[in-house]
């Protein structure tokens, strides 16, 4: 094959020094020349508006806040110390709690998405071929609609005088003065609803590839359906499962709109903390430190994701 290499071969193979182009070898100089005017503008753009600003955030996180909220460029690691619990009077748990709470919420969202996503993935994989595309589209439509609208939709559904809250109170599952919104239940419900597509798509990709013969073999050998699922199906869909969990965990732990609108004042997550520092508190260096920690969490998650999918683009975009 003397064709332009595809995505997968690009990752795996070492490239020859003279890469091919339309079947003809092209000197590297020509590659550079054409790439520079095709990719140059975008590369410059992303360096200027993405990489540069992110590096600036990292630099800012080591700066200090002046008395009037101005930035004092004197190196300090105080912002990070504060985020990890160093207060004026010894250990102060408020800030680390925000971090822990965000990670916990992300994890819980991922688990709930997994539980809700599994049946959907199996259901779509079991549909006749021509319905699969439509079903997958149905999964991603909500994701591409406005997050704010979906979030306040949950406000309406979970309102204290709404029929769900009243029903739960009648059934005594909710205290008479208890509320679904604002609070944890509303935040979790909206997060799961929001990030479910990120879970369903990779899961579906894995479930599609399942070898049904293995499961039948397990059943023939006397395994109960649960046992067969646990030791035969689950190991096979592990890549999609981990990819889905990472893809849900990462954005969910950094969410800002949902906790802001549904959580009430006391349930700040990382995203809200960043917003507060850049807004009302006007402590940009500290806000930057929180953003950097969020970035590091994302980096770790992505690294895990690449490890699991081994560089294959199992899931790029919903």
């Amino acid at each position, binding site marked *: 094959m003397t064709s332009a290499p595809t995505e997968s071969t690009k990752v795996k193979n070492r490239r020859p020094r003279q890469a091919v182009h339309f079947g003809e070898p092209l000197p590297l100089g020509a590659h550079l020349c054409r790439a520079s005017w095709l990719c140059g503008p975008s590369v410059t753009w992303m360096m200027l508006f993405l990489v540069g600003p992110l590096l600036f955030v990292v630099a800012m996180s080591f700066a200090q806040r002046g008395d009037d909220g101005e930035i004092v460029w004197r190196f300090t690691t105080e912002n990070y110390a504060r985020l990890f619990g160093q207060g004026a009077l010894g250990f102060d748990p408020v800030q680390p709690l925000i971090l822990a709470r965000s990670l916990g919420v992300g994890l819980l969202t991922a688990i709930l998405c997994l539980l809700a996503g599994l049946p959907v993935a199996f259901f779509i994989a079991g549909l006749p071929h021509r319905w699969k595309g439509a079903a997958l589209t149905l999964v991603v439509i909500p994701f*591409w609609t*406005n997050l704010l609208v979906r979030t306040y939709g949950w406000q*309406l559904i979970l309102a204290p005088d709404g029929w769900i809250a009243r029903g739960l109170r009648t059934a005594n599952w909710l205290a008479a003065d208890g509320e679904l919104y604002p609070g944890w239940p509303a935040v979790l419900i909206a997060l799961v609803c929001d990030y479910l597509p990120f879970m369903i798509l990779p899961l579906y990709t894995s479930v599609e590839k399942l070898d049904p013969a293995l499961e039948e073999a397990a059943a023939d050998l006397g395994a109960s359906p649960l046992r067969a699922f646990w030791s035969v199906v689950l190991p096979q869909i592990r890549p999609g499962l981990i990819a889905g969990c990472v893809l849900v965990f990462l954005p969910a732990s950094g969410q800002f709109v949902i906790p802001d609108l549904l959580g009430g004042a006391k349930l700040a997550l990382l995203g809200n903390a960043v917003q507060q520092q*850049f807004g009302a508190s006007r402590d940009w260096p500290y806000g930057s430190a929180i953003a950097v920690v969020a970035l590091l969490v994302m980096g770790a998650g992505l690294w895990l994701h690449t490890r699991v999918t081994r560089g294959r683009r199992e899931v790029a975009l919903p």
Partner: protein
Amino acid sequence: MKTRRSPLTGLAAVLVFVFLYAPLAVVLVFSFNVARHGTMWEGFTVDWYLRLLDNQAALAAAFNTLQLACTSTLFATCLGTALAYGMSRYEFPGKRLFHHVLHIPVFIPDIVLAVALLLFFALVRKFLAGFELGMTTMTLAHITLQIPFIAIVVRARMADCDPQLEEAAADLGAGPWLTFRHVTLPLMMPGIVAGSLLAFTLSLDDFVVSFFTTGPGATTLPILIYSSVKRGITPEIHALASLILVVSAATVVTVAFLRGRTEVKR
């Protein structure tokens, strides 16, 4: 998959779909509700939609949103498409690293990108007199957000295309420009259209990045909805939100249709 699943799987799946669409459905239903307050159904009306036409703030925000989405999508489509073409055909040092950079906006929490751009624009403003936060900064921010999405979709499309078609054109005597114009570009087109439509919805629905990079006077529909939700929602906002929902959903369905059609063709 031929294995039969229990009907419980189907039931659970249907429930999950109901769950996914519940918030959208509620907003749509409430936009036709006579009641101004509360969560009770009091009758059908299209009054709230008609009142939007007299709402100057909403109209101005709608105009800003559309202008922002169209401008940024146009720029991002040109940049992203050239990038995707260049990256899938030519080599340059640091290409693999840049491939990863391109995925940052896809995974990064919105708020981090938003404050990074805010810091950057604040820095520029220090050195450049007359540079104000507003439509321009929002457009720059949205293009940054959109380029990766378009490049990724177009590249995926190009990876699916048979490169031998281009070779055949070259063998039959077509020069590089003719080959590009009559073979490569038509092959890329579904990817370009799908990518730019997705980028358009991305801009249309973006709240966090706009919120941080906008200035006084430049309000978009999501920002307007956010401030309304903070103050207390009116049925007019339901109507406005429903219109945005319908536009986004229609765009995504178009994209899916385009993708589906090209898949059948192959």
